[in-house]
């Protein structure tokens, strides 16, 4: 039974990782706390739901659409809002994203109402694989594998491509990056878009097994905050591993102490870990 619980935790953990990788890009790299991150996820999920309910597109095929759309949402968030508060204190930007979060959430409520929406009968839905005594649902597995691949792609992108290294350089020293001929404004806009793309992808991967309502994604925001801090701000590898850890701790904690405690266990773990490593598990 415990093995089953751990496997479940790992599978959710990979999805958490992807959401957190998106957040660590904007928070760690740009030092902007994006309170609308969870609402990006929400809109990704509603997009997938809309495509499924109107055009019967399976979420796995709407993945590219949500990636592109939420990339654009992130990009626009930067261009319309973040750019204008970039030089003010960090809390100012936070306030702006908080306002934007209100806007996104309430538009969603206006359009989709507060009722729970479910995407059913998906390609991977329902079926399970049996490995010994462990059952693995196809849709969970697909979400986990998809998330892992995408997280690794982002990691590779940041470390190996010219634009990726430019993102790192810009995060270290913006004005010097400008002197290298890097269009830092464009880099920031792209980073915000990339952050959106991560949650957009996570949204499509999650909808087969996650009911949607305007307030359902706030929790993912909070979990992503914790994961990003746990992994060390701006550390993509850290976010990936910390996401996995949080998934497992949540699952095991819930199993041992009851589901109402599963999040408390995560927060407790954060407090304890940070006493030992005050800059995160994998912080520089």
């Amino acid at each position, binding site marked *: 039974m415990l093995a089953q619980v751990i496997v479940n935790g790992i599978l959710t953990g990979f999805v958490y990782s992807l959401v957190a990788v998106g957040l660590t890009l904007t928070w760690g790299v740009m030092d902007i706390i994006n309170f609308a991150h969870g609402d990006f996820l929400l809109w990704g999920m509603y997009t997938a739901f809309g495509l499924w309910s109107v055009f019967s597109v399976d979420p796995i095929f709407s993945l590219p659409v949500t990636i592109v759309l939420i990339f654009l949402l992130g990009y626009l968030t930067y261009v319309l*809002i973040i750019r204008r508060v970039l030089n003010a*204190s960090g809390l100012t930007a*936070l306030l702006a994203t*908080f306002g934007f979060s209100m806007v996104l959430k*309430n538009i969603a409520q206006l359009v989709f109402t507060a009722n729970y929406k479910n995407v059913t009968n998906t390609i991977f839905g329902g079926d399970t694989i049996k490995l010994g005594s462990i059952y693995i649902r196809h849709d969970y597995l697909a979400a986990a594998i998809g998330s892992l691949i995408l997280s690794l792609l982002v990691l590779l992108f940041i470390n190996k491509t010219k634009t990726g290294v430019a993102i790192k350089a810009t995060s270290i020293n913006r004005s010097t990056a400008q002197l290298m001929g890097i269009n830092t404004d464009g880099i920031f806009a792209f980073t915000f878009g990339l952050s959106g793309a991560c949650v957009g992808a996570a949204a499509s991967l999650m909808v087969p097994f996650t009911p949607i309502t305007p307030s359902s994604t706030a929790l993912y925001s909070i979990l992503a*905050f914790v994961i990003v801090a746990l992994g060390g701000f701006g550390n993509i590898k850290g976010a990936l591993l910390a996401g996995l850890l949080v998934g497992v701790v949540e699952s095991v904690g819930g199993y041992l102490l009851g589901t*109402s*405690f599963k999040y408390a266990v995560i927060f407790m773990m954060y*407090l304890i870990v940070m006493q030992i490593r005050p800059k995160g598990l994998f912080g520089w």
Partner: protein
Amino acid sequence: MVKINKLFIENSFAFVLLALFIIVPLAVGENADIHNIIIYILIYALVGEGWNLISGFTGQTSFGHAAYFGIGAYTVAVMGNKYDVVPWVGMLAGMLIAAALAFLINYQLFRLKGHYFAIATLAVSEILRTIFSVWPYVGGGDGIKILFRPENKALWLAIDVRNRLPFLYITLALFVAVFVLCKMLENSKMGYYWKAIRESHEVAEAIGINPQNYKVYAMMLSAAIAAVGGGLYVQFFKYIDSYVFSLDVSMIFVLVTVLGGIGNVYGPIIGSIIYYVLDLAMRRLLGGTASGLNLIIFGILIIVVVVYQPKGIMGIFDDIVNRRRLRKLKASQATTNASSNQTGGDSK
């Protein structure tokens, strides 16, 4: 006499505000809606002042002040309901418990810096939320409804629902007390030390400040103030559940303070006024229906305010004062040598 005059002139802004808060509730007559709004403004401004001590003056951002707000609220509710304790005493107890909790938790947590600390404060309030949502003693998931017992005058202000004025003025008095305390602290050794820590940890240590201790002092005071706000809130709202520990609640204190001007004693009250007046205006204009259209516009307004005034509303005043000072400086340099320009206090 001269001294008193100076007190009035230097703080004229505060006195104008105070006069407004005394007169407006009377002027609007028995308009319960406006009275309610004013009470909200004052409660959140009061907690905002507390949040400002630790996050504005001392520079340690807290995303978890709901923890202390909630403790204050639950203490008043539990003591009042179960043991018929007067809210005054309940609030005092709430302050002490909140301060003690702040000490116990934060002495350890202050090893963390910046965002790592902010997330830790969030973690603390989320843990409290879980505990309070399952703890039968505090009502568990059902929360606590403040009981009406007219024969028991213990819950003094919960009695008359129609007349909010006495409660409003008590809230105002408590806010003024907190405001004056914060203003005095700002100009004391404590305030200077807090700001030094905010600006540079290393400098603070190098000039003989123990940052750990002073941060804990700020947090304890801040927590106690938040608890007072919670105590007032629960008497006013008459119901409390574990939602009070959520990030949404913590964020209101952050919002009103940053909106008004962080690190400025006027920030929380100005921000709170703007926040609730906008909120009220939106609801009046668009109706409080479930559509949430008012919240959409409200969100846009927050963005607009922040984008155009990133230093908060008080930033506008600062700009005006600075510009006037510069002009004065230039003028005095033009006429005489700058030597005569030695007046002017350090009121900032």
